[in-house]
C-alpha cells in the first residue's frame, strides 16, 4: 500500500471526520425515516395473487384511481384540509398580530400561555371535550334550549362543520406561533409609515403587514395543512358516519382489511398530496422552502 500524499491524507481525514460527525444523523434518517418509506414503497407495488403469494404490479394504484370512493375521499380530504388551513390562518392572524404588535410586554407570555393550555390535554381529550359541547344532549344544545333559541335538542355533531371546527381548533397554535414570530420582527414604525403615507387599514395590511408575515404564513400553513391532512382522531370522532378522512381509509386498509399493499399505496398517495400542495403553496407565494423553514 502506497502512502498518500500529505494533502490527500488530510483531505481523507477531513472527510472521515465529517462522516463520523454526520453518522448519527444519517443513521437516524436512514433507520427511522428512509427505511420505513422504502419498505412501504416496495409494499405498495405488490399485488396479492393467492394466499401468501404476491407479485410486483401497479394494481394498488390502479385500484385507487379506478374506485371513485377512494379518490373522492382523497379529494375531499385535500379540499377540507386546505379549507381548514385557510380558516385557521384567517382566525389566527389577528390573534398573532395582537400578541406580536399590540399586547404589552407583560401580557404577551400570558396570551401565549392561553393559546398553549389546550395542548396540555391530549388530542383525544380535546376532541371528547368538543363532543360533549356539540352533541344533542350536550352543553350547547342545552344552553340553546334554555335560552329559548331552540325548541328541541339540536345535533351539532357528526357533520363537516364540526370536523372543520375541531381541526381548526387543533391547528391554531401551530399557526399562531410562526405568525407571531414573523410579525414580531415587523418594525412598528413600518406600520406607522404605512398609515402616515396615506394607507387605509386594508392597504397597510395588504402591502406591509402581510408581505412581512409571508414566511410565517407559509410556514404555519404548511404545518397546519400537514397536521390536518394526516389527522385521524378528530375527523373520525367529530365526523361520525360522515367524517370520512383519507387517513381512515389507510387505517382500515391496514387494520381491518389486512390489505397492507393497498394501505401502503394510499399512504404514498397522501405523501404525494402533501408534497404537491406544499410545493404549490410555496410556488404561489414565491417563498423558498429553506427560507421558510429558517423563519418558522
Amino acid at each position, binding site marked *: 500500500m502506497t502512502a498518500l500524499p500529505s494533502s490527500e491524507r488530510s483531505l481523507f481525514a477531513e472527510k472521515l471526520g465529517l462522516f463520523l460527525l454526520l453518522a448519527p444523523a444519517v443513521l437516524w434518517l436512514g433507520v427511522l425515516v428512509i427505511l420505513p418509506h422504502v419498505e412501504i414503497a416496495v409494499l405498495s407495488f405488490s399485488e396479492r395473487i393467492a394466499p401468501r403469494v404476491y407479485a410486483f404490479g401497479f394494481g394498488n394504484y390502479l385500484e385507487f384511481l379506478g374506485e371513485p370512493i377512494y379518490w373522492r375521499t382523497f379529494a375531499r380530504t385535500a379540499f377540507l384540509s386546505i379549507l381548514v388551513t385557510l380558516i385557521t390562518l384567517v382566525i389566527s392572524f389577528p390573534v398573532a398580530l395582537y400578541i406580536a404588535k399590540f399586547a404589552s410586554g407583560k401580557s404577551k407570555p400570558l396570551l401565549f400561555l392561553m393559546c398553549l393550555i389546550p395542548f396540555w390535554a391530549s388530542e383525544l381529550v380535546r376532541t371528547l371535550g368538543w363532543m360533549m359541547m356539540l352533541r344533542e344532549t350536550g352543553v350547547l344544545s342545552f344552553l340553546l334550549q334554555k335560552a329559548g333559541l331552540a325548541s328541541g335538542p339540536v345535533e351539532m355533531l357528526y357533520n363537516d362543520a364540526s370536523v372543520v371546527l375541531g381541526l381548526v381548533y387543533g391547528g391554531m397554535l401551530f399557526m399562531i406561533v410562526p405568525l407571531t414570530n414573523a410579525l414580531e420582527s415587523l*418594525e412598528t*414604525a*413600518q406600520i*406607522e*409609515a*404605512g*398609515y*402616515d*403615507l*396615506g*394607507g*387605509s387599514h386594508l*392597504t397597510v395590511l395588504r*402591502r*406591509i403587514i402581510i*408581505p*412581512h408575515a409571508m414566511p410565517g404564513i407559509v410556514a404555519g400553513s404548511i404545518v397546519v395543512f400537514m397536521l390536518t391532512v394526516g389527522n385521524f382522531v378528530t375527523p373520525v370522532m367529530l365526523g361520525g358516519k360522515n367524517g370520512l378522512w383519507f387517513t381512515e381509509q389507510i387505517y382500515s386498509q391496514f387494520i381491518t382489511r389486512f390489505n397492507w399493499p393497498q394501505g401502503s399505496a394510499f399512504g404514498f398517495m397522501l405523501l404525494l398530496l402533501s408534497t404537491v400542495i406544499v410545493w404549490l403553496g410555496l410556488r404561489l407565494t414565491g417563498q423558498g422552502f429553506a427560507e421558510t423553514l429558517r423563519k418558522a
Partner: protein
Amino acid sequence: MTLVGNGVRGDFMSDSADLALLSVVKEFGAHRAVDSVTFDVAPGEFFSILGPSGCGKTTLMRMIAGFEHPTSGDIRIRGKSMLAVPANKRPVNMVFQSLALFPMMSVGENVGYGLACAGVDKIEAGQRITRILDRVGLAGFEDRPVTKLSGGQRQRVAIARCLVLEPTLVLLDEPLGALDLKLREHMKLELKQLQAAFNTTFLYITHDQSEALVMSDRVAVMNKGRFEQVGSPRELYHNPLTSFVAGFVGDANVWNGSTFGAQATGLGIKLSTGAALVGAGSGSGAVSAYLRPEAIALAAVPGELSSLPNRFAGTVSTVLFDGAASTLVIKAEGFPHLRATLPQAGPLAGIMAGAPIGFGFAPEALKIFPA
C-alpha cells in the same frame, strides 16, 4: 419667509401658519409628557425642536403626525384642526428615525406607495416617481431593492417618499441618528438644500444641537415637556433665556456662585471657588454662570486685555489640540476649571502646557441665571 421670534409666542395664531399648536397637553397616566406647548411654523420654514431624550419631543411629533391624541389643546394645519383627522388623512408626512422603508418593495414602490394610496393613476405616478428620484439624486434607482442601498441613499428615499406627496408639512424624527459622523455632516447640508429647493415646511426633532443649529430657521428648545425658548439659532446661542438653554445649546464653562450686587458694568458675582466676576443677568443669591470658551480672550501678557473688566492670570494646564476647535485648559486662582478656545491663527498658537497666560471676557459674555 423666515419669521424670527423672541421666545415663546402664543399671542398670534395666523391662518397663514402651516402648523399651529395651541396649549397642547399630553398625559400618560400621572406623567405629563407634553405640558401646554404653543407654537406655530410658517410656510417654508425649517423648524427644529431640540431637547434631551425624554423631554417629550417625540410625543409632540407623534401627536402632529396623528399617532397620539392630545389630552387637551389643538393642533391646526393651515388653520384646520387636525384632532378629528386620522393619521392617514393628514397632509403631514414623516421621516422616521429608523426611516421605516418597506424592505419588500423596490425604491420605486416605496416612493409610489403614498401615490397609490392617494389613488394617483399609474402613468402619472410613474412620472412623479421619476421626477422626485431625479431631484433627490437617485435617478434610475426605481427598481433597486431598498435593502441594497447605502445609508445616505436610504435617507434620500425616505425623504422622497414624503416629498412626492407634496405635503404641507414634513416631520423628521432624528433621521440622521443612525448615520456615521462624516455622512451625518454631509446629510445636514443636503437636507437643508432639499428643504430650500422644495420650499416645503420641515419640522425636525433632534437631541443634537449641531443638527438643529446648522439647518434650522428657528429652533425650539424643549425640556421636561415645555418649550424653554424659541428663536433663531443665533439668538439661542448668544442670548439664552434660561439656564437650561445656556447649558444645552453650545459649549460653556458652568460655574456656581452667589451675587454680591450690581456693578457699573453688570451684575457682580462671586464664584464658590473664590473669583469675583461681573456678568449679565438677573437674580440674587445663588446663581449659575455660563461662559462660552470662544468668548474668552487670551493674551500672553494680561495687560493686553485692559479693556475687559474681567481680567485674570493663570497657567496653561493642558493643550487640547483639535484643529480649529483646539482648546486650552487653564488653571487660575479662584476658578474651578476653565476651558478657552485657542485660535490657531494668533500668536498663541504654539503655546505649551505650563506657560503663563492672561485671560478675560466681556460682562455680556457671562450669562447669569438664578440657580
